[in-house]
C-alpha cells in the first residue's frame, strides 16, 4: 500500500503522462487533468513562483473550466461536476455538507445553490465551500506537492507560463523546451511597401495568412459547448433546423451565417448516439443560432437537452488566398503587366485605358450623380487602376454601380464585382441590377439557405427557377430530391451534371457576377476570366483576400473603400503586428497613389458631419442634406440646444472588467443608455431607428440584459434595438445613435477608443441625432477626443444632470498627451473588439 509522497521519484526517466505540464510534478494526488477535449493536459496544485497554483494558472490563462481527477487520487478518476445539474465549470463549483451527516456534495453556485427549494432540505447552504480558494484547488481535494517535491520540480516562471500558454494556442503539444528553440518567439517578416517580385510578395504574405489561419482554427475549434438545449423545426426546404443558444464564450470568435457546426447527442436508453453537421442559417440578437442539418435521418427530435456543439473549421478562405498569391506569382496572364508591377510598387510608365467615354456618366435606375461622383466615374473609366475613397454616406454604392454599368457596356466581357462582406455584395448586386444589367449573385454553397435580400439574383435561386422546358429534367430531379431527401446514385450523378451545366449557362449569360472576395475563388468560376474588376470595401480586406478576384485576368481594377474607417479584422496579434491588417488600398495610398474622394455626404444632419469632416477629411466633406431634411419633426426629445440634435452626456460612473476578461462594462452608462432609449421610444421613435454602439463586448452584453430587465416599456421594444460594436456598424446607418464609451479609469488608457478610425466610424452612423456617453476627464487626455469634447462644449452640447433637466457641464478637461498623430490612420493596430 502506498503510504506517502516519498514513494514518487522525481526527475527520473521519461515524461509521465500525468506530470504537470509546467513543472513536471507527477504525484497523482497532486495533479488534475484539464478536461477540455482539445487540451487534456495535466497540472499540479502547487504555486511555484506564481500567484496561483499551476492548474488554476492554466485554467485562467487558457480560459478552460473543466477538470478531471487522477485515477489514483482519493476520489479516483472523476470529472468534477455539480451533483444536481451536472455543470462542470470549476469556477462555479463548491462543496456543501449535509446538516446532520458527514456527507458532502459538489454544487454549482449558479443556479443550483440559489434554488429556493434546496433550503428546506437536509443540506446546509450557509457554508458553501468553493473548489478554488485563494487561487488554488482545495488542498484536501487536490494535494499541494510537498516542499521536497516542489524543490525537485522544474522552476517555471510566470512569464514562461504565459509564453507556453500562448504557444499552445497554435501548437498544443509544445513543451517548455520548445520555448528555447529558435523561431518560436521570432516575429514574422513584416509587410513592406514594395516587393521585388510576386515570389517575394508570396514569401511575406503566405506565412502571415498561415499564422492567421492557425489561430482562427484553434480559436474556433476550442468553442465546443456541452449541455446545449435544442428546439427543433423544419425549414421551407424540408430540412431539419435546430435552434439553440451558442453564447460567445470568448468574444474573439464571431459566428456568422454559413459557418459549419457539429451537433452531437451522446445517446440514452431510448436514443442511440447521434451527430450531424449543419450550416448556420440565422443568428438572432439573443444569440440564438439556427442550424440547418445536412442529414435529416435519425435526428432525435423528441430530445431537447444534453446536446453538444462543436465548431467545424474550414480552411477554404485561407486556401483561396494562398492559391491567389501562387497564381499571381506563377501565371503571367493572371493580371496585366501594368497591374502586376503597380501592385508590387514598381515605377511604371503612366497608362491610359483607351475607351470610348459615355456621354453621360449616370446610369439608368440610379439617382443622379453629383459632381465628385461624375468625376470619379469618368476618371476611373480611363485608368487601369483607380482608388475611390468614399467617406461615410457619400454614395459609394451608387458610384460603384454606375462604374460597373459603364464597364459592362464597353463590351470587354463580364465584369466581376466583389467585396469582403456578404452584406456589401448584396447591396451592390441590388444597385447594379437596378440599372438593368443582368446580375448573378454567386453565394457560397454553405450560405444558400441563408436569407438574402437579393434572393432572385442568386445563382442557386436562378437554377431552381429558370423555367424552360429543357430544364424540366433538372426540375424533376430537384423535386424528387426535395421530397425524398436523397436520390439514387445514378439520378444523383445526372442531377449534379445537369445542375453544373445550368449553373454555367446562367453564369455565362450574366453581364455582371457579384460575390465576396473569397467567393471569387469558387470552383464554379474556375474557367472564367474577368478583365474588369471592382472591389468595394477594399479597405476591409487583407491584401491576399483582395488578390483573389484580381488574378482572374484583370486589366482594369477599381478599389473602393475608405482608409479613414476600420480595416480588416485580424485575430492573430503576431500577424496583425507584422502588417496583415493593412489593406492593399492603404499600401497603394502610402505608395503615393492618388485617390478620388467622394465629397458630398447624404447621411448626417449637417451638425453631425461637421466634426468628422474637419477631423478626418480635411474639412472637404460637403452636406448633400439640409437641416430641414434631417429635422426630427414630432419627436419630442430633450436636445440641450434645439436644432442641434447632439450632445455629450457627462458620465462619472466606474468602469468594471467584464465577461471576456479583456472587456469592460460601465453600469451607470448602461442605466443612462436605457433612459435615453426609453425617452426616444416614448417620443415616437421606433426601435429599428435606434442603434446603440459600444466598443466593448462586455458593455454590449450588459446593456442588452439591463434594458430587457429594467426598461419601463414593453420588453419586446428593447429587444428590437440593435446594440453592437463599432465594427459591426461599419457600412451601416441608423436614425439615432447612442454611443457608450465605457472607459472611465483615470490611470489607464482608453484602449480601443484610441483608434481614430474607430471614432470616425462611431460618429458617422447617425442620420438624425447622436448622444455620446462618456467621462470627459478620461477621454480628454487623448488629443482627438479632446478636440471632440471641445467641439461639443463650444456648441453648448456638453451636458450633465438628469435627462429631463440637462445642464451645461463645467467639467475640466485634461491636457492632451501628445499632438494628434495622423499616421495612426495607416496600418494601425488590429481592428479587434474586446
Amino acid at each position, binding site marked *: 500500500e502506498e503510504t506517502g509522497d516519498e514513494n514518487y521519484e522525481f526527475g527520473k526517466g521519461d515524461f509521465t503522462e500525468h506530470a504537470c505540464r509546467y513543472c513536471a510534478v507527477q504525484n497523482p494526488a497532486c495533479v488534475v487533468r484539464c478536461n477540455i477535449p482539445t487540451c487534456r493536459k495535466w497540472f499540479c496544485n502547487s504555486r511555484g513562483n506564481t500567484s496561483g497554483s499551476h492548474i488554476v494558472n492554466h485554467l485562467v490563462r487558457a480560459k478552460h473550466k473543466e477538470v478531471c481527477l487522477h485515477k489514483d487520487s482519493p476520489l479516483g478518476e472523476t470529472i468534477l461536476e455539480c451533483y444536481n445539474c451536472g455543470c462542470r465549470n470549476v469556477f462555479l463549483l463548491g462543496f456543501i455538507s449535509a446538516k446532520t451527516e458527514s456527507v458532502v456534495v459538489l454544487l454549482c453556485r449558479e443556479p443550483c445553490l440559489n434554488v429556493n427549494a434546496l433550503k428546506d432540505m437536509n443540506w446546509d447552504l450557509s457554508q458553501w465551500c468553493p473548489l478554488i480558494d485563494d487561487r488554488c484547488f482545495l488542498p*484536501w481535494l487536490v494535494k499541494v506537492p510537498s516542499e521536497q517535491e516542489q524543490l525537485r520540480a522544474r522552476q517555471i516562471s510566470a512569464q514562461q507560463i504565459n509564453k507556453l500558454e500562448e504557444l499552445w494556442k497554435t501548437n498544443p503539444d509544445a513543451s517548455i523546451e520548445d520555448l528555447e528553440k529558435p523561431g518560436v518567439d521570432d516575429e514574422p517578416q513584416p509587410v513592406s511597401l514594395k516587393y521585388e517580385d510576386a515570389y517575394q510578395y508570396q514569401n511575406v504574405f503566405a506565412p502571415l495568412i498561415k499564422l492567421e489561419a492557425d489561430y482562427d482554427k484553434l480559436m474556433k475549434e476550442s468553442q465546443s459547448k456541452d449541455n446545449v438545449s435544442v428546439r427543433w423545426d423544419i425549414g421551407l426546404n424540408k430540412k431539419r433546423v435546430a435552434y439553440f443558444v451558442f453564447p460567445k464564450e470568448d468574444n474573439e470568435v464571431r459566428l456568422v451565417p454559413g459557418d459549419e457546426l457539429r451537433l452531437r447527442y451522446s445517446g440514452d436508453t431510448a436514443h442511440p448516439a447521434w451527430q450531424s453537421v449543419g450550416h448556420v442559417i440565422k443568428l438572432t440578437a439573443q444569440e440564438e443560432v439556427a442550424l440547418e442539418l445536412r442529414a435529416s435521418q435519425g435526428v432525435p427530435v423528441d430530445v431537447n437537452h444534453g446536446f453538444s456543439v462543436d465548431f467545424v473549421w474550414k480552411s477554404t478562405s485561407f486556401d483561396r488566398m494562398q492559391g491567389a498569391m501562387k497564381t499571381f506569382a506563377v501565371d503571367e496572364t493572371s493580371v496585366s503587366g501594368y497591374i502586376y508591377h503597380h501592385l508590387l510598387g514598381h515605377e511604371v510608365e503612366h497608362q491610359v485605358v483607351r475607351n470610348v467615354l459615355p456621354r453621360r456618366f449616370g446610369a439608368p435606375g440610379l439617382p443622379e450623380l453629383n459632381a465628385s461622383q461624375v468625376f470619379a466615374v469618368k476618371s476611373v473609366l480611363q485608368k487601369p487602376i483607380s482608388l475611390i475613397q468614399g467617406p461615410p454616406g457619400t454614395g459609394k454604392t451608387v458610384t460603384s454601380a454606375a462604374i460597373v454599368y459603364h464597364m459592362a457596356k464597353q463590351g470587354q466581357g463580364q465584369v466581376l464585382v466583389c467585396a469582403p462582406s456578404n452584406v456589401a455584395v448584396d447591396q451592390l448586386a441590388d444597385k447594379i441590377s437596378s440599372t438593368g444589367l443582368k446580375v448573378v449573385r454567386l453565394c457560397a454553397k454553405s450560405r444558400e439557405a441563408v436569407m438574402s435580400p437579393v434572393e432572385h439574383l442568386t445563382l442557386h435561386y436562378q437554377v431552381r427557377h429558370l423555367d424552360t422546358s429543357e430544364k424540366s429534367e433538372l426540375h424533376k430531379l430537384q423535386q424528387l430530391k426535395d421530397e425524398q431527401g436523397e436520390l439514387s446514385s445514378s439520378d444523383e450523378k445526372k442531377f449534379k451534371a445537369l445542375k453544373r451545366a445550368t449553373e454555367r449557362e446562367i453564369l455565362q449569360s450574366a453581364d455582371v457576377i457579384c460575390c465576396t472576395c473569397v467567393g471569387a475563388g469558387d470552383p464554379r468560376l474556375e474557367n472564367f476570366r474577368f478583365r474588369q474588376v471592382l472591389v468595394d470595401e477594399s479597405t476591409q480586406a487583407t491584401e491576399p483576400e483582395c488578390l483573389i478576384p484580381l488574378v482572374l485576368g484583370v486589366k482594369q481594377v477599381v478599389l473602393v473603400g475608405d482608409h479613414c474607417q476600420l480595416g480588416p479584422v485580424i485575430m492573430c496579434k503576431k500577424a496583425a503586428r507584422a502588417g496583415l491588417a493593412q489593406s492593399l488600398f492603404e499600401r497603394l495610398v502610402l505608395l503615393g497613389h492618388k485617390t478620388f474622394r467622394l465629397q458630398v455626404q447624404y447621411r448626417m444632419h449637417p451638425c453631425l458631419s461637421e466634426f468628422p469632416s474637419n477631423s478626418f477629411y480635411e474639412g472637404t466633406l460637403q452636406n448633400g442634406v439640409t437641416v430641414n431634411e434631417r429635422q426630427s419633426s414630432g419627436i419630442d426629445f430633450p436636445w440641450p440646444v434645439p436644432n442641434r440634435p447632439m450632445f455629450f452626456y457627462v458620465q462619472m460612473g466606474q468602469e468594471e472588467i467584464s465577461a471576456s476578461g479583456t472587456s469592460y462594462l460601465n453600469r451607470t452608462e448602461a442605466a443612462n443608455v436605457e433612459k435615453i432609449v426609453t425617452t426616444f421610444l416614448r417620443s415616437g421613435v421606433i426601435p429599428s431607428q435606434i442603434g446603440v454602439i459600444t466598443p466593448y463586448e462586455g458593455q454590449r452584453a450588459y446593456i442588452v440584459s439591463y434594458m430587457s430587465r429594467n426598461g419601463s416599456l414593453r420588453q419586446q421594444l428593447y429587444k428590437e434595438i440593435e446594440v453592437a460594436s463599432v465594427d459591426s456598424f461599419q457600412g451601416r446607418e441608423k436614425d439615432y445613435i447612442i454611443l457608450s464609451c465605457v472607459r472611465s479609469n483615470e490611470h489607464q488608457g482608453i484602449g480601443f477608443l484610441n483608434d481614430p478610425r474607430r471614432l470616425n466610424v462611431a460618429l458617422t452612423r447617425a442620420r438624425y441625432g447622436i448622444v455620446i456617453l462618456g467621462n470627459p476627464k478620461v477621454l480628454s487626455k487623448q488629443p482627438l477626443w479632446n478636440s471632440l469634447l471641445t467641439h461639443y462644449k463650444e456648441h453648448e452640447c456638453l451636458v450633465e444632470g438628469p435627462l429631463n433637466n440637462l445642464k451645461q457641464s463645467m467639467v475640466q478637461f485634461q491636457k492632451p498627451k501628445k499632438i494628434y498623430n495622423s499616421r495612426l490612420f495607416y496600418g494601425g493596430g488590429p481592428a479587434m473588439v474586446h
Partner: protein
Amino acid sequence: EEDSVLVRQKLVKVDPKEEEDFEREMKALMQESLESRKLELRSRPTLNMMIPMNVFEGSKDPRFVEGESGEETVDEEGGNGGQNKVRVKVLMKRGNKQQTKQMYIPRDCSLVHSTKQLEAAEVEE
C-alpha cells in the same frame, strides 16, 4: 534543512504585475461564468438532491457503503486521519447512479461545523 530555506525564498517571489494581471483575468472568468448561468433562465434546475438511504445506514456500518459502491478508495492517511482530519462521504453521480467515496477533510474546514456532524464522523472511526 538548507533545502527548505531555499524553498521558502522561492515561494515569496511573486511578481506584483503578474499577480495583478492574473487576478484580473481570474475575476473576469468568474464573473463571466456566473453571468452566463444567470442568463440561462430556461434551465432552472429541478432538484435531485435526496441523500440515498444507504448513506444513512452506512453511517452505522462503514463497510456497507464500501460494499455498495464497490470502488471505495481509501485515503492514503488510512485510519489515522482522526486527529485533525474528519472522514466524510462524497456523494457523486456516475450516469444516473449514485455513488459515495470517502475523503478526509481538515477538522477546521467550514464544511465541518456542527457537532452532530463531528459525532457522526467520529462514530465511523
